């Protein structure tokens, strides 16, 4: 399908915004929601373009589900506007709220929310019962086939497995051909073993229908693997939004850096175009565009695969000591406490066994620029 090609073919490597040539379907502007003294969503603005999958990623309580519910019309924003195409769905200042049934937005609930008194086919047909019977039946059959459950039409939710319920829930929300499909932690109620295969399956179904989707999750691996763009949320704020690899490689905040992957931070002092750290002087090649006065203290982001530890001859020449060994099957991840107290991780092949407590030197082996944050 053509839209699948435009998805990953983003021309400009620096584009953190949506494709310029694609049409914006859904726009949130300055959305704020408070519950009593607590601000659940704080001045959030973003836009979703036609046909993309946007993952909203964040820890629990970060406001991502509340954002989703406001888009669906199940919660009312206190401030800001939500527009879908050329329709305004919510604008509290103008007192305008479109009720959820007129949103033309589908939502796949975390625990599926299948109607227990209806069978699979009746669940799927629920949102399209205003259509002629023939068309309705054809649409239901088409969707059941799409999700691979055409032989389960007569089954009731309690007779379906978790993965099957998930597919029926997806088919049900796709049936009325919504403008936007929302998915609220759609895989969190499935077995770990099922999650990876289900996420590929759901990605396939969403791709085949071409629907624009917002997928909420707290699982960074899930977000990075299924999304065209990822928005990272924390404390009700959208921290960063962009293509997955961009977010991972060039996080703009310490929060985003530590939420994606195992992040360590090295304290550094700018010295000319190089940086002095506990593990030695890191030269300019690692820091393109570093332009800070000498002596400025910065935090250098180092992930386990950026670093390698080597046993040191003695304490005097060592950068630090091994304080912990995590065996992860194919690899070891060693935690190193540097002489000045930074805590960093180094990933090694599973054959490289070092003892905890040992003095080590650490080398940067990354072949990409290192991200840094000013203190």
């Amino acid at each position, binding site marked *: 399908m053509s839209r699948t090609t435009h998805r990953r073919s983003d021309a400009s490597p620096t584009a953190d915004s949506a494709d310029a040539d694609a049409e914006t379907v859904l726009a949130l502007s300055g959305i704020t929601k408070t519950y009593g003294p607590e601000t659940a969503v704080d001045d959030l603005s973003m836009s979703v373009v036609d046909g993309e999958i946007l993952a909203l990623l964040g820890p629990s309580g970060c406001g991502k589900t509340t954002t989703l519910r406001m888009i669906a019309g199940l919660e*009312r924003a206190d401030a800001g506007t939500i527009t879908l195409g050329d329709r305004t769905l919510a604008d509290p200042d103008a007192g305008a709220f479109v009720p959820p*049934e007129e949103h033309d937005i589908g939502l796949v609930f975390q*625990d599926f*929310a299948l*109607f*227990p008194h209806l069978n699979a086919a009746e669940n799927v047909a*629920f949102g399209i019962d*205003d259509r002629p019977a023939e068309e309705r039946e054809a649409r239901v059959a088409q969707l059941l086939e799409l999700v691979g459950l055409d032989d389960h039409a007569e089954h009731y939710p309690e007779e379906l497995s978790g993965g099957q319920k998930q597919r029926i829930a997806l088919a049900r*929300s796709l049936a*009325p051909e919504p403008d936007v499909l929302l998915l609220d932690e759609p895989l969190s109620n499935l077995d770990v073993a099922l999650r990876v295969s289900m996420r590929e399956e759901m990605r396939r179904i969403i791709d085949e229908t071409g629907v624009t989707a917002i997928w909420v999750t707290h699982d960074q691996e899930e977000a990075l693997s299924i999304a065209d763009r990822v928005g990272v949320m924390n404390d009700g704020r959208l921290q960063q939004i962009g293509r997955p690899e961009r977010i991972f490689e060039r996080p703009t905040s310490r929060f985003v850096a530590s939420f994606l992957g195992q992040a360590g931070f090295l304290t550094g002092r700018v010295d000319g175009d190089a940086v002095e750290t506990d593990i030695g002087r890191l030269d300019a090649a690692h820091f393109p565009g570093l332009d800070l006065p000498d002596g400025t203290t910065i935090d250098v982001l180092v992930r386990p695969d950026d670093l390698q530890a080597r046993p040191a001859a003695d304490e005097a020449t060592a950068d630090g000591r091994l304080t912990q060994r995590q065996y992860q099957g194919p690899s070891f991840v060693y935690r190193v406490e540097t002489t000045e107290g930074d805590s960093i991780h180094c990933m090694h092949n599973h054959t490289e066994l070092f003892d905890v407590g040992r003095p080590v030197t650490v080398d940067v082996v990354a072949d990409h620029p290192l991200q840094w944050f000013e203190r």
Partner: protein
Amino acid sequence: MSALDRLAAPFAHARSGDSDLPTGLVLLSGAIAAAVLSPIAWILLRVFEAEGDVSLVTQPSTFATSIALVAVVTGASVVIGVPLAFLTVRTDLPFRRFWTIAVALPLVIPSYLGAFTYISAFGPSGYIAGVLAPLGIDSVPSVYGFGGVALVLTLYTFPYVFITTRASLLSFDESLVEAARTLGVSRLEAFRRVTLPQLVPGIASGALLVALYALSDFGTPNLLRLEVLTQAIWVDFNGFGRETAAMLSLQLLTITAVILAVQSRVGDSTQGAYVGTRASTSSDTTVALGRWKAPALAFCATVVTMCLVVPLAVLFVWFRRGASDVGRTRLVFEWSYATNSVLVSVAAAVVCALAAIPVAYLAARHRSTIAEVIDRATYIGYAMPGIVLGLALVFFGVSYGAAVDDLSSVVGIASYLPALYQTLPLLIFAYVVRFLPQSVGATRSSVMRVDRELTEAARLLGQSSLGAFRRVALPLIAPGVLAGAALVFLTTMKELPATLLLQPTGFDTLVTYIWAVRESGSYGAAAIPAFVLIVVSALSMVVILSQEK
């Protein structure tokens, strides 16, 4: 409630603030709550209207008797109910299933029937006296008075404590005791410090039901001739001392309020609500009775004999004598009494089911102060003694009638407004006030079981809020609504005091017939209606038990 639900609860609370309360639903539920509360207003009005010094009519001895009766019956019920619950849940007592059912069964015998059979068996000219007289024993302990009332009420109310304690014991996670033991605490100490605190809320909720029942019961003290508040109200009412009756009603309501307040302090501690994931009755934690097995069996057998075997045997004797008795009395049993009972009970059940839906839906879906107030208000009728409620509605019917008369004499035309006093609508309204909580309770718990996401899903699939309710919520809560209605039907069938006060002239039911027969002494005529009532009550137990699954 799973642990997850409880974690989510504050969120659910926050999500449905006062702002999105549906106005129509609130107004409708509020109107229902106001209607249910109105009888209290009539009592208060009557008290304030009363002339003279109201303090003169307080009878300290009656007041004290009522309180003493509540204390003794509640205490005795706990003393009987808690050990029985422990024996049937946590020990190797033989025939545990049999005892569990047998011990809960007394609930199906209305206490006034129990009292009736006890008079018949143990009264001065009863069967026991008749058997003992030839043996030279001419005095048996009197069944009349405080002792008799306390005994009969205890026998027919302790199952409340038994059932609630049993439920707490069953849901109690034995791994907590094991945890305590591994922390170096003895078995007895573990019981005191871990098990007991978890059981107290269960015991307290059973004790509350017992206390309210003992305070409000009218039939038993009346039959066994004990001057308690309900009896005094009845006497004053019939002697046209209606201000006095109103005053006494207020006293009764005050004691009721105190009991409710005490219970909510003892029983409502939610911190004792740890629910484990493990089934509690693994065989290795069952207590072996050893040489206590025989006394335990004797205890169970005695209780069952006194509350089941005796009354059923008496009823059976009545039944055998029935034919000859029926011939001797003017009070011939007619099946229309049964159909009358069914008629008013069906009407009450239908009204309750309809009124319960908005109240229950509001309470289950919108956690806000106003929803809670409305929900609680509908429960007040449950705690209101039937005789007080009956009296309040008599006041209402009479003042309403007088107002209509005034109006027609002033305006000078015949009034088209119908009278209310001693009409079926007023009687049915009384049943609704008393038994609406059963309907609300059953409906509310079924609404809670319907995930709110289901109605949200329906909204997103194009249904309005009313459409989502009709197409998704209603089919799912229907079993709960029906169960609540069935419960109302069955409890209405056996309701005594309000029926006696409000029955339309010439409109007799099973209950009023039994009541009339008691005076004639031809008990045989009461056998069939009594059996019908017991079967009806047994069915209500079945409904309650099927809901608990």
